[in-house]
């Protein structure tokens, strides 16, 4: 990584941290949307930079494929419901 790329990477890390801070201060859905938008932009720049000079094969191999939603917590919720007293 060149000196310039190192500088850009640090700057992106800083922007990412700032986005999380803004999201937490604003709170709620609006905060999450703001944080997500900024994070997307920084991710886009970081990924574009990371992908410089990489082949299609390398880029595709590195993609972290999104998984289905994690709803495994529902088993604990159902158990907690069953543990409550009946009317």
């Amino acid at each position, binding site marked *: 990584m060149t000196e310039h790329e190192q500088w850009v990477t640090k700057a992106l890390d800083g922007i990412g941290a700032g986005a999380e801070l803004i999201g937490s201060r604003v709170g709620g859905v609006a905060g*999450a949307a703001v944080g*997500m938008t900024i*994070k*997307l932009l920084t*991710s*886009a720049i970081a*990924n*574009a930079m990371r*992908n410089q000079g990489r*082949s*299609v*094969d390398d*880029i*595709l191999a*590195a*993609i*972290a*494929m*999104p*998984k*289905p*939603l*994690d*709803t495994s*917590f*529902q088993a604990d*919720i159902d158990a*907690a*419901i*069953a543990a*409550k*007293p*009946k*009317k």
Partner: protein
Amino acid sequence: MFACGGSNLRQHATAADVSATLLVDLSTQISAAWRDAELAALGASRTQEDAQEGVAEVRARYAPLGIAYEAVRLAHAAYVGAILRAHSQGGTLGASAAAELADKWRALLTLASSRGVELAAPPEALLHLGRGPP
């Protein structure tokens, strides 16, 4: 239809990479919000019946969101599959994407049906494209 090869495919691969990052973040946030909403409903209920009702309400509210996320996730998977297919087999990205999307749409319909969410059937034109050229 449009042909994509070489550097164009590289741009598509980068776009797929970036959107994957977004989707992973999105799924984490949706799951956390869903869990928090169920926990809140649970905490607000004293009896088993009230808790069942409250949690069922939250699940009914979040189920369409879960299906919407799954639709985007499967579309993204189709996009990556199309890029892979076009890259390895040299076809057009458009034809590859149509075939991949038709498969994923069927999977989505099955999932939506299992969760009680009604979705429109995929357009016949898309299914036709998905079958590929004769």
